[in-house]
């Protein structure tokens, strides 16, 4: 891969007091592409995203390599990390209801990123925010700028969050279940907006999700995680040729429109999936 933005080798994360690592030896590289990380609850997919931003207080993060562009993320002091977070690497969270500050107008929350990382006047920041709100297809940015989170819909809230995370023009965006709190009709709109912005700006995207349909439609490459390890890496178009029984099981367990109504295949979890080396 030419010029990867992110190079992760043998990443391990252990939560304080936990008997075993939550993430065990995950390695991948990311270029200017959309990478999906998919797995079930407890597979460690969100932990990987948080470890990249070092958002896991108390947890022990170790890796042979954890390089983001020219920066060794593990060597950075917390102070230097602040200059990376939000500016060069940012994270879109799952539920706008819980992730936006309920007592602050949304425009001000979006501006905070910009004011923190760039020297500018409040008026300049406001202009930037309005421009960004328009870029996430909010129809009346002037009006929405002054609204509080409870006054906007879930889909709009998630677009506000995307605006917030893209405003500082980062090189890498990690989206952790960005649409699972949204209705299906709104979900596609939000995904298309995110997709368009990521493509136009050449941002690397990591999409963390439990939803196989989502990652295979919106990512170029997908890592499938099970019990803290990557068990398979697939190109989006190659899901039909998935080889690992876990991936095959996940695909078969999903009800499909136009399916034959027969009982769904149930995963028969094998203990060796936890340990066997990557195919």
């Amino acid at each position, binding site marked *: 891969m030419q010029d990867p933005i992110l190079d992760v080798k043998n990443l391990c994360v252990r939560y304080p007091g936990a008997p075993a690592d939550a993430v065990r030896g995950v390695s991948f590289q990311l270029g200017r592409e959309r990478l999906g990380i998919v797995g*079930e*609850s407890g597979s460690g997919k969100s932990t990987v995203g948080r470890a990249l931003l070092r958002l896991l207080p108390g947890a022990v993060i170790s890796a042979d390599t954890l390089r983001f562009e020219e920066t060794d993320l593990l060597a950075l002091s917390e102070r230097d990390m602040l200059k990376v977070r939000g500016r060069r690497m940012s994270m879109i969270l799952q539920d706008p209801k819980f992730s936006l500050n309920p007592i602050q107008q949304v425009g001000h929350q979006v501006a905070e990123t910009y004011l923190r990382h760039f020297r500018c006047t409040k008026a300049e920041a406001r202009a930037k925010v309005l421009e960004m709100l328009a870029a996430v297809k909010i129809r009346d940015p002037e009006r929405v700028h002054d609204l509080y989170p409870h006054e906007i819909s*879930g889909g709009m809230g998630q677009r506000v969050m995307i605006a917030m995370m893209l405003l500082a023009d980062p090189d890498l965006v990690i989206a952790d279940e960005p649409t699972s709190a949204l*209705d*299906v*009709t*709104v*979900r*596609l709109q939000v995904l298309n907006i995110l997709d368009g912005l990521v493509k136009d700006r050449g941002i690397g995207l990591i999409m963390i999700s*439990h939803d*196989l*349909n*989502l990652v*295979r*439609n919106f990512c170029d490459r997908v890592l499938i995680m099970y019990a803290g390890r990557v068990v398979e890496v697939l190109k*989006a*178009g*190659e*899901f*039909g040729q998935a080889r690992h029984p876990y991936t095959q*099981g*996940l*695909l078969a*367990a*999903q*009800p*499909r*429109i*136009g*399916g034959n*109504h027969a*009982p*769904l*295949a*149930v*995963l028969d979890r094998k203990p060796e999936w936890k340990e066997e080396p990557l195919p």
Partner: protein
Amino acid sequence: MTASVAIRDLSISFGLAKVLPNVSFDVAPGECFGLVGESGSGKSTVLRCLSMLTDFWTGAITIDGRNLRDLPVKERCRMLQMVFQDPYGSLHPRQSVRTVLAEPLRIHGLDRREERMQQAMVDVGLPVDFLDRFPHQLSGGQRQRVAIARALILEPQLLLLDEPTSALDVSVQAEILNLLQRLRAERGFTYIMVTHDLAVVDHMCDRFAVMLHGEITEILPTSAIQGNGATHPYARELIGASLEYEGAGKASAA
């Protein structure tokens, strides 16, 4: 052991907000009927009215030809039971499975309690010794099985399912959907199922209603999903979005 449901002009207001303006639909005995729509469209409210968890509605609901409001509470509970969305919130954290299952049996004065509890565990595919576990000792899927066992133990005819699998992983969802399908085939339950996932509707239901702002825009057979046979613009949009969402993936899997 199955019941028909008829809902006529069901309406309810929370304060000034009219949540359900005027809902009417019928469910045949043994049918699985889906309610879909975006959040806030009132689909769960319909179930709460049916179960009398919310009882200040107007209109008429009849179950097996009997007026729901005329049914004594005990009889109503033996007629219909509800399974809630989130098995992490719907089980009492300090009650063992045995306590959870024994309570309805005690209230209704049923005999052979131990036997019934064991049977309910077997029915939902849990080991009998799980009776002495507490919710925190169970996984999400196992908890939802306990919630289903609790609904089954009074041998109801109508099950109200409020997003029974949306808090669960796909592989666990598959297990729960299979369980619900098997129980319906064995016992002929009538299901009314709220969900936001049209793939689940297509898999489970015979017909479904699309709700928007408390109103039923359209009632469709599930066969109408694939070719998007809806006529109402919102129903078309919803089905279109679901097909698109699933589309690319299905093409590559085929």
